[in-house]
């Protein structure tokens, strides 16, 4: 597909630019994959689609913006971002997720929809519709030359950070006892509880990990989009949710791949389409999502029937 697109705009897209588009798309895919891990992890353990995940990222981004507005050092800003996002995640888990644990998936989805609007409107009240600017890390937007291609540093940082996080998570899930508990809960919550897995502990840990990833995503996204508004990361969350369902929610791996794929696709299409057509990019992506869901409702990367639905 890529050669077709590149061929169509040969004058516009030289080989080097093409490499650049590729790396940027993989970088975007990496950021989306991180969000997909955060959403997929919480879904696996609690059977809850967290629509409010994007607002965690938004809150973290505002923390960064406030820190940069005060002229605090970058480290302090990132620390503030992590603290804010983790505190918010814990509060969300305690106040919303836990009381709703026994409810149907639809009720939980609408509840997180409400939480997402609540946080968004609080941000609107607090910071206004124009938002604030986070400038402390924009230096990462500068290009470096890698293998003859001009690549923005942030794309490389995003790819490396995502790879490290996923590797750490795999180690945690497979090599520690809390990871074992989480996998057991994801597979069969009631049996896991019977065998002595502490449900609250497991859900708190998964929400904290998801929160830490949201903080990282906030840092990565503010570099590319320094203007932080109440709708920051909203579009990304919708796309990642679609990607996660497209990939398949029954396993973390397939959900993550789905998230990566939609980020990569949107990066490639956004980079390759001429501007007259690129305004219809969301339609194209959503159309693809619907198409995949019709062909593989349980997910692109799953085998057999998913465990989500019965009828």
């Amino acid at each position: 597909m890529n050669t077709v697109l590149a061929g169509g705009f040969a004058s516009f897209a030289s080989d080097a630019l093409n490499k650049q588009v590729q790396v940027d798309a993989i970088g975007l895919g990496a950021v989306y994959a991180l969000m997909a891990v955060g959403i997929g992890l919480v879904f696996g353990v609690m059977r809850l689609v967290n629509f409010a995940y994007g607002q965690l990222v938004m809150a973290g981004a505002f923390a960064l913006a406030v820190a940069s507005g005060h002229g605090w050092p970058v480290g302090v800003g990132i620390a503030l971002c992590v603290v804010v996002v983790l505190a918010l995640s814990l509060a969300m888990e305690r106040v919303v997720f836990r009381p709703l644990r026994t409810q149907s998936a639809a009720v939980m989805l609408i509840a997180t929809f409400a939480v997402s609007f609540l946080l968004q409107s609080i941000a609107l009240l607090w910071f206004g519709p124009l938002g604030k600017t986070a400038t402390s890390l924009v230096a990462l937007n500068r290009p470096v030359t890698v293998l003859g291609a001009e690549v923005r540093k942030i794309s490389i940082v995003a790819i490396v950070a995502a790879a490290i996080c996923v590797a750490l998570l795999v180690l945690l899930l497979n090599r520690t006892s809390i990871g074992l508990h989480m996998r057991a809960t994801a597979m069969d919550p009631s049996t896991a509880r019977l065998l002595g897995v502490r449900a609250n502990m497991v859900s708190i840990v998964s929400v904290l990990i998801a929160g830490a990833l949201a903080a990282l995503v906030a840092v990565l996204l503010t570099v590319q989009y320094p203007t932080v508004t109440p709708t920051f990361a909203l579009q990304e969350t919708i796309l990642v949710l679609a990607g996660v369902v497209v990939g398949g929610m029954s396993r973390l791996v397939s959900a993550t791949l789905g998230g990566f794929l939609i980020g990569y696709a949107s990066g490639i299409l956004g980079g390759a389409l001429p501007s007259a057509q690129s305004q219809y990019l969301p339609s194209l992506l959503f159309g693809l999502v619907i198409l995949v869901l019709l062909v593989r409702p349980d997910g692109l990367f799953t085998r057999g029937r998913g465990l989500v639905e019965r009828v």
Partner: protein
Amino acid sequence: MRARRATVELLAPAALVVGAALFGAVVSQTTEVYVVTALISVSTVVALYVFVGNSGVLSFGHISFFAVGVWAAGVLSVPVAEKPATMPSLFHFLATTTVGNVVSLVFAAVAGGVYALLVGLPLMRLSGLAAGIATFAVLGITNNVLRYYEKIGPGLNTFSSVPETTGLLQAAVGALIVIVAAFAYQRSRLGRQLRAAREDPAAARAVGVSIYRQRLWAFALSGLLIGFAGGLYIHFIPINVDAVYLDLTFITLAMLVIGGSTSLWGAVVGALFVSALDSLLAEMEAGLNVFGLNIDLPEGSRIVVVSAIMALVLILRPSGLTRGREFSLPRVVRRAEA
């Protein structure tokens, strides 16, 4: 007894609507605007209920059909002379046609219904999360196309010069039409089959209910009604494409869930309750004087309160204010059961 109970189930929501309209007729001009908004919300939420309530399947896509209704009624009823100002690149036949109020509402309903039917044909095969995300994708596509495709509407411009024919009377009559249609549907053979499938899909299938077909009918009818509601809305205030996207989706779902999503009564109560609350908060944002106490909320606190209440209702009472039951008089119920 059964017939009497059915009458009560229809009359209670209808009476609520008539009561609200009468209230709107005696209050000041500014309050009347709130009442008209509330009545249009009743149409919208009841239309959404026809699908979501009867099928138990969540849809984030219904505001697409509302938006299509807005576009159909809006484009068709702007006078030909006014069209070039906001919609310079319309298709020729759209640019040269203008229809009256009622005809434009019919077109809005038909456009919503046909679009929902077309979308539903493939989508109703899905269920659960896949269905939720797919309907969301429909909303995304609709919004994206309406935003940039200027041959069928104003694009990013605001719809102006649409005749403002939706007053108290039209809003109330519209809401009553939608309520009667929803009631007739849920008591019909089709409606009962779909409700049976909601309660127990496997058992419904075993007695020969085609869940796909029933969901599709409900989806199309629901799209038709919500398209009609969209037509009512554009004849009330000029709006642009941002007014028919995520915020409206959220508030409409919130009204349905807060009222109780499995009953017509719940849909009407939810719409009126949230509208009343929203109007009150809007007044407070503007500065309201209650018994010498001056309340002045900061701009934007309405949506904070509404979403907090929605989350609270879901946590404390997930089946909604009415517990998802139809309205019934206590005495009548006891006799019917005996």
